């Protein structure tokens, strides 16, 4: 194919990509995201993992080492199907902290430290340089393959100038679409769209070649299987060390590669997309690797033995005369290379400008932070960085001569970026990880990587003298680059990966354990590790004290975000604070939000530094942290106290309600008592009045006068007794009763009571059962009062006992310091429902036999017993009415009152 047609189709393809990116940017600018932010586009954009190294190199790798090429895709597959472990957290943190690059993530996690940002940037640039060179080399090689043997048309330019043209074209594309805007979130919809298109081209091209090979050249899968077994590839043996080592390495790389981080975290539009990508991206890799081995086998079979296996994807269709297929394959390879270079250089330029150029600029010209438009400086820094990164890649390509196998270069880059992994994982899962630990780990890892892998890759004698390889530096045999600490016989790549990561991790842990993190670091550590606890967002804590003029903040924000965007942001914040205008109060919330917003453009470290300049305070102090923690603890304590008080209030309210009920009941009782009393007083009064009226009329027979006079006298006595009882009761209830304490014999008291009560219904003969022995107890009490109680009980028994042969048993028992006296008759007793009220005033069980008092007897008894320090209760279940009187053996004076 003529070289000029090849160039022409390349140009058309590039113009097509420009158009795609342009249209996508236009739609995004108008807010029409639609499918631009779909899980499919996200997944396809992840495919920049498959660079020209995959597209061309995988076949070469398979031809040299059989199935080992799969390790590069199995590692990422494991990481993605295990997205719930790491990727989910990374994406969440990336969105919460508005992370702009992997260097920004590390720097932000470890206290917005710019030093770490610089270290990660250096690692990324050093590791990416050979990788970019690899892409340039593969494009140049593919040009060479196509153009060879067709001298007509343009003369084939030498490879170097092809490389220059490719590099320059890529730089232009990246600058145009990668640095068009400096936005709140470092997202590039145009570029993502173009990459997605290129991803499809890659996949289709490789599948097309594969299908052609399997069904065009061979006779289907079974035939291919047979050919694989027959080919030299089948001599490959799985080396356990390399197999597991490379899977781990590629798994680490897919997380840490700057370009993967860029599309996976920074360009992520929605966390839910990751869920789809968790299986769709492995499926994409599956599709990309499916036909690698068949292509390699057929290439080895059909092409001359000197052919470069890295170019089989191109040369196989070409040699079979399939020009169109070869063209498609060429475009696929071209896509792989360009998409990788574009995203990689964007990611690296963001890191370079945010972590190297801007801090330097702020350091050198501190006064400029609030003056002059910073945006063009940032953009200029990015553009220069893109050019510089590509220039570095080109230089490496020139220097290395582009001879090494593609796979080897790729692994060097993987091992380089993997040095970030310990600090990254440690940072998001372990709060104890510190800046010093991370820096020590990464620097040590980088040094070991450079010494054991990167520098030796230039060949013995190129950078490291050949003698060092065999004898070690200065004769120190244990420091030989490919046999560190005497570990010989290991594959050089695995050896370097092993030692660099082991030493890196060891230094990381040792540094973290031995040092104390500063407050910002601890705050960020907590925010990162607890990214899924929303309340743990510790963002606003940073600026609790100190003052900044809102206007100065606005001016600074305008310098970075642009006038319009800054005003919109400030206005929204002002409105959120419930004010009008453009100047919100510089509350901690607002300043933290602003810092995060700025961090989305210039990185966390720079944004923090710029705001500190206005705040006149560079860091938070431990006191601030403690204050916040205290505040939280106090709040919790306070709320616990409130809760406690609420409980107490509830309890008190319940008690009050109960008391209130009792009071109401008492009031009802009092009313009842009053009406009872007036009734009781009224009855005798009425008869007295009636008979005295009759008497005053005179003219009555003498006998009648005497009879009426007796009735009046009886009723007056009844009244007096009632009044006496009432008086007695009120005295007893008040507790103001005067007791005369003396020693008295219980038996004698009972005798007295029996004698006194025999007046009640004297016509009935009662059988009294007593136990004289038990009664012989001396009590110290008020004998008269106690006898009063006994009389009352015995009279009651005489009055109410309805048995034909009534009997009363008086049982005395001494228990502890108390004496119980039971009065049990053989009547029908008191019904159960009445037992509760017998001791109430005016409680009478029946209307017959009113001969006794007014129903105050038992009420008085109860009060008397209370005054004597004893009790009187009804004893149920004695086959008759039974009362138990309990008195203390010795009643002490003070207890009386």
């Amino acid at each position, binding site marked *: 194919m003529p070289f000029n047609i090849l160039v022409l189709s390349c140009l058309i393809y590039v113009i097509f990509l420009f158009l795609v990116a342009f249209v996508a*940017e236009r739609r995004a*600018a108008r807010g029409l995201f639609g499918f631009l932010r779909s899980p499919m586009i996200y997944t396809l954009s992840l495919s920049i993992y498959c660079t020209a190294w995959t597209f061309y190199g995988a076949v070469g790798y398979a031809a040299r080492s059989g*199935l080992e090429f799969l390790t590069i895709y199995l590692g990422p597959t494991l*990481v993605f199907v*295990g997205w719930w472990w790491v990727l989910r957290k990374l994406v969440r943190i990336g969105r919460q902290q508005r992370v702009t690059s992997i260097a920004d993530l590390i720097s932000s996690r470890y206290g917005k430290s710019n030093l770490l940002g610089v270290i990660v940037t250096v690692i990324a640039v050093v590791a990416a340089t050979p990788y970019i060179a690899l892409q340039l080399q593969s494009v140049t090689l593919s040009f060479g393959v196509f153009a060879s043997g067709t001298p007509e048309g343009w003369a084939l330019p030498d490879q170097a100038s092809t490389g220059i043209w490719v590099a320059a074209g890529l730089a232009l594309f990246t600058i145009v679409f990668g640095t068009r805007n400096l936005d*709140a979130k470092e997202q590039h919809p145009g570029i993502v769209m173009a990459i997605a298109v290129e991803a499809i081209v890659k996949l289709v091209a490789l599948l097309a070649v594969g299908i052609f090979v399997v069904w065009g050249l061979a006779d289907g899968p079974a035939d291919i299987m047979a050919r694989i077994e027959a080919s030299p590839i089948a001599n490959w043996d799985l080396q356990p060390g390399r197999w597991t080592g490379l899977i781990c390495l590629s798994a680490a790389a897919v997380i840490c590669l700057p370009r993967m981080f860029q599309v996976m975290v920074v360009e992520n539009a929605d966390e*839910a997309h990751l869920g789809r990508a968790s299986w769709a991206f492995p499926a994409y890799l599956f599709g990309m690797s*499916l036909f690698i081995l068949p292509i390699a086998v057929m290439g080895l079979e059909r092409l001359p033995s000197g052919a470069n296996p890295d170019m089989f994807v191109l040369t196989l269709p070409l040699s079979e005369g399939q020009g169109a297929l070869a063209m498609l394959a060429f475009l696929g390879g071209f896509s792989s290379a360009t998409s990788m270079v574009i995203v990689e250089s964007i990611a690296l330029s963001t890191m370079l400008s945010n972590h190297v150029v801007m801090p330097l600029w702020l350091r050198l010209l501190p006064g400029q932070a609030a003056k002059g438009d910073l945006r063009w400086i940032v953009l200029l820094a990015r553009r220069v960085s893109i050019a510089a990164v590509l220039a570095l890649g080109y230089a490496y390509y020139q220097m290395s001569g582009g001879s090494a196998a593609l796979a080897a270069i790729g692994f060097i880059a993987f091992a380089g970026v993997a040095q970030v992994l310990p600090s990254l994982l440690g940072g998001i899962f372990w709060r104890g990880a510190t800046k010093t630990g991370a820096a020590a780990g990464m620097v040590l890892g980088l040094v070991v990587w450079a010494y054991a892998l990167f520098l030796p890759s230039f060949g013995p004698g190129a950078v490291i003298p050949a003698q060092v390889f065999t004898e070690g530096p200065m004769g120190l045999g244990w420091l030989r680059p490919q046999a560190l600490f005497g570990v010989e016989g290991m594959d050089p790549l695995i050896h370097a990966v092993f030692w660099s990561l082991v030493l890196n991790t060891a230094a990381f842990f040792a540094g973290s354990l031995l040092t104390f993190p500063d407050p910002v670091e601890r705050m960020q550590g907590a925010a990162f590790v607890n990214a899924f606890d*929303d309340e743990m967002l510790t963002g606003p804590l940073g600026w609790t004290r100190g003052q900044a003029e809102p206007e100065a903040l606005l001016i600074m924000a305008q310098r970075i975000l642009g006038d319009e965007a800054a005003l919109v942001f400030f206005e929204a914040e002002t409105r959120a604070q419930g004010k009008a205008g453009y100047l919100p109060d510089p509350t901690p919330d607002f300043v933290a939000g602003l810092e995060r917003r700025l961090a989305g453009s210039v990185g966390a470290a720079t944004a923090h530094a710029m705001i500190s300049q206005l705040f006149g305070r560079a860091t938070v102090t431990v006191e601030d942290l403690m204050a916040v923690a205290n505040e939280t603890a106090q709040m919790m304590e306070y709320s616990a106290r409130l809760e406690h008080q609420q409980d107490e209030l509830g309890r008190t309210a319940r008690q009050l309600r109960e008391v209130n009920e009792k009071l109401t009941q008492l009031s009802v009782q009092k009313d009842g008592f009053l009406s009872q009393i007036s009734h009781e007083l009224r009855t005798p009064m009425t008869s007295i009045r009636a008979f005295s009226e009759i008497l005053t009329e005179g003219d009555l027979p003498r006998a009648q006068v005497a009879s009426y006079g007796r009735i009046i006298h009886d009723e007056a006595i009844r009244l007096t007794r009632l009044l006496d009882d009432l008086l007695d009761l009120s005295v007893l209830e008040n507790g103001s009763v005067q007791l005369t304490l003396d020693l008295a014999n219980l038996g004698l008291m009972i005798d007295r009571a029996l004698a006194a009560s025999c007046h009640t219904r004297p016509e009935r003969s009662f059988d009294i059962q007593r136990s004289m022995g038990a009664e012989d107890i001396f009590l110290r009490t008020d004998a008269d009062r106690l006898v009063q109680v006994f009389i009352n009980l015995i009279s009651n028994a005489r009055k109410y006992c309805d048995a034909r042969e009534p009997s009363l048993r008086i049982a005395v028992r001494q228990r502890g310091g108390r004496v119980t006296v039971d009065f049990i008759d053989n009547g029908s007793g008191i019904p159960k429902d009445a037992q509760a009220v017998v001791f109430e005033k005016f409680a009478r069980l029946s209307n017959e036999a009113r001969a006794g008092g007014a129903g105050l007897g038992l009420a008085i008894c109860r009060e008397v017993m209370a005054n004597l320090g004893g009790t009187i209760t009804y004893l149920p279940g004695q086959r008759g009415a039974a009362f138990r009187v309990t008195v203390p053996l010795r009643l002490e004076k003070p207890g009386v009152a």
Partner: protein
Amino acid sequence: MIRPRAPLFLAKSGYRRRRLADAARLVPVFGGFLICLPILWSPAETDVRDTAPDGIYLFLVWAGLILAAAALAPGLRQAGGAERTGPPEPGDRAGPPPGTGD
């Protein structure tokens, strides 16, 4: 700082979501085991030409992992959505559409 205590027992739906997340965490572990299994077949000691069967085995494992992840992903997406209940960030409130910053 004292964190609010999470409930000790969950309702059935919450319980299932947790187990789904556990399953998602286990997938790469099993995957790693299956992928490393060929090491135990002592490849270097046999003269059998086993590259093609090994390749088929690995691709089958690979497809199995993809299917497992695809089966788990929809349920997990919902679980992730349920977790996202925090207040919006202040910066999000005022975010202009990308592109206006230029």
